[in-house]
């Protein structure tokens, strides 16, 4: 039966479904004047031990240290030694050189897939510098900078990207899904945001054992819509877990702009408010601000102050991955017009402004890093590239499903070996 409201002329307004739409599409001129950028140094810095609610004004602000004059300003200036600044600059530049070369390697057919982090280097490199080496990192897929900042060998990373016979993950993971227990870098999952409850659990375990290690985890702003995000924040606040949630708001989740994760209504840092978690919103392209915020959160966690959520407000200057074409869904000018600049250039300009660096040194370093990456790539290619036969022995396919091989996997392993001998009789036995 039709309801009374179906009758024409009833006096209720029709409801409307809102479907978010980004400001610009391909062909549109870009104007970022709607992005509010407060002056560097203007944001208050509460004590690390403050109640979570004291941070809430910062969830709607933007912590910035480096000003237009390339100088550090305000209470968030971490006052780092020039050597540390140069080291962070070097690692960010190395990440960029690595990304460029691996992008080309994918285009040359040496691997199936690659993901650059251009424009986001500070959010991993500088954040990692604010942690201790034994703190556990639960990364997402764009945190190659964390591994590089911890000194992981480039050849190991490329072996993983090529899934070759030296890949210590035995060719099982997608390229860029690294893992290093030695460097306290957890295995990366393709299912998004699953690392957030895991980081919280690690932090809870550390606290329950009276240890001093903390956990830090990274997630894209799009994945904050996953249930795991909410579980993790609930557990973190309930148990006051020593964990840092880094939300990388790079504006785009493949082709979906941040509005599809709720950005039109609230900043991602503001997600912390409802959970009673400390929240900071940071200029993610300001290396000093990123370091300072992460250090603040790490000190808070380590002194039993509990969890912090940091929104790194940044921009994904490249496509989501080598399988993505951003020109199909966003304005070509967005990356170049991004009003918060480029993190590598900003740190470089700061070091030059304080008399600790020069353009010539930068050029020399870029050339040196490029050579370093090239040599690592050559070294890795001796172990093979994807699909060129130099992969792990056949039987490794069945290893590590369980600690011990059960009867059904033994049978299937024997089947696979028989098939291999029929399919590729010319291959020497492995």
């Amino acid at each position, binding site marked *: 039966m039709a309801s009374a409201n179906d009758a024409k002329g009833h006096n209720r307004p029709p409801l409307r479904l809102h479907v978010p739409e980004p400001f610009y599409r391909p062909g549109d001129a870009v104007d970022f004047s709607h992005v509010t950028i407060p002056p560097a140094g203007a944001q208050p810095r509460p004590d690390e031990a403050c109640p979570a609610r004291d941070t809430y004004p910062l969830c709607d602000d933007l912590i910035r240290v480096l000003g237009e004059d390339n100088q550090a300003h305000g209470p968030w200036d971490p006052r780092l030694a020039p050597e540390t600044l140069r080291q962070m600059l070097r690692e960010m530049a190395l990440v960029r050189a690595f990304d460029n070369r691996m992008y080309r390697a994918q285009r040359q057919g040496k691997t199936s897939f690659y993901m650059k982090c251009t424009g986001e280097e500070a959010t991993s490199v500088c954040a990692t510098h604010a942690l201790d080496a034994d703190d556990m990192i*639960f990364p997402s897929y764009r945190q190659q900078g964390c591994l590089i900042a911890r000194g992981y060998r480039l050849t190991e990373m490329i072996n993983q990207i090529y899934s070759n016979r030296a890949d210590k993950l035995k060719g099982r993971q997608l390229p860029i899904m690294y893992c290093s227990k030695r460097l306290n870098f957890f*295995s990366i999952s393709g299912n998004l945001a*699953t690392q957030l409850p895991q980081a919280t*659990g690690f932090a809870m375990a550390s606290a*329950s*054992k009276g240890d001093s290690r903390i*956990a830090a985890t990274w997630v894209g702003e799009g994945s904050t819509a996953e249930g795991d995000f909410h579980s993790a924040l609930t557990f973190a606040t309930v148990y006051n877990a020593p964990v840092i949630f880094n939300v990388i708001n790079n504006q785009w989740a493949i082709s979906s702009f941040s509005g599809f994760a709720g950005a039109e209504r609230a900043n991602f840092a503001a997600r912390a408010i409802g959970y009673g978690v400390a929240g900071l919103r940071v200029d993610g392209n300001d290396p000093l601000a990123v370091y300072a915020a992460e250090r603040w959160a790490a000190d808070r966690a380590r002194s039993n102050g509990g969890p912090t959520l940091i929104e790194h407000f940044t921009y994904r200057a490249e496509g989501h991955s080598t399988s993505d074409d951003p020109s199909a869904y966003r304005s070509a000018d967005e990356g170049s017009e991004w009003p918060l600049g480029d993190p590598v250039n900003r740190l470089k300009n700061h070091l030059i402004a304080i008399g600790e660096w020069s353009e010539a040194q930068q050029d020399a370093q870029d050339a040196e890093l490029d050579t370093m990456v090239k040599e690592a790539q050559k070294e890795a290619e001796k172990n093979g590239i994807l699909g060129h036969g130099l992969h792990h022995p056949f039987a490794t396919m069945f290893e590590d499903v369980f600690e011990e091989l059960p009867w059904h996997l033994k049978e299937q392993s024997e089947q696979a070996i028989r098939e291999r001998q029929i399919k590729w009789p010319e291959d020497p036995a492995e």
Partner: protein
Amino acid sequence: MSDVITQTQTEAAGETRHMNMIEAINSALDVMLTRDPDVILLGEDIGYFGGVFRCTAGLQEKHGKTRVFDTPISECGIIGVAVGMGAYGLRPVPEIQFADYIYPGLDQLISEAARLRYRSAAEFIAPMTVRSPFGGGIFGGQTHSQSPEAIFTHVSGLKTVVPATPYDAKGLLISCIEDNDPVIFFEPKRIYNGPFDGYYDKPAKSWKGRDDAQVPDGYYKIPLGKARMVTDGDALTILAYGTMVHVAQAVCEAKGVDAQILDLRTLVPLDIEAIEASVRHTGRCLIVHEATRTSGFGAELSALVTERCFYHLEAPVERVTGFDTPYPHSLEWAYFPGPVRIGEAIDKILQD
């Protein structure tokens, strides 16, 4: 044929006393919390209150709030933090209050816990034991009665365990907690307090006076992947686990059927040797489980028996299962695979 536990292990476990399945599970958790400082228990209502089925009663008081504690209502969170705890080096034992509630935690179990060893080439492991009451027969309606074991047996990297007696529950649970792989430990809640023979209109039985409810106080293990022969017989093999072991046994006793009943105990890894030996001996095979029929674990068992024992079979393999409907509250006893359904299947197998 595999059985159980050596005399020496039982002696080492100390004095035995009567326990129901809840007490046996509690004892296993108590033993492991005492032996291993890395064992940690978490779940909804398991701390101060001791769990809605009382399986963790007294453990928080004895072992402290940081080792046995309540959690938010978030299965994804419970299992997700357990993965992180495992990465740290603990052996978490999360409880999911009812197996029906496990679905929000499935991604953390299937994509994370189960694959962590594989994807990290054994750099990280997730040595957790997810305990969860499962199965019907307690008027739990469609959200407190399910048997979702087939979902987990389909996943590479997970082990699935279902005890049928107090003695097994303790010995198997200790093995699960010490195992370095993630395990789902399903507790058949209909038999927590006593074995159930399937005759819903008769008085409930008790574990009292039964040998399989005489449980050592101390530490002992029953290895995973070893079935238990419940009754030896020649007429047919019955493959069952959990509550259905007792129902099948009661039917055979009532009908005077000389069955060889195998309690599988663990579905992954499966004791294929025991199954093959039994079916080759009897030539007939009946599979009984509570879960819905289509794509249930019985389908896998039936396929395995057919593939491996076809020329020894004298009748088609039969399955007795729940129906392919949700579990109906008021018609629970019409749904439950009880004596009538099992009896008819036995008659059919034996007449061929």
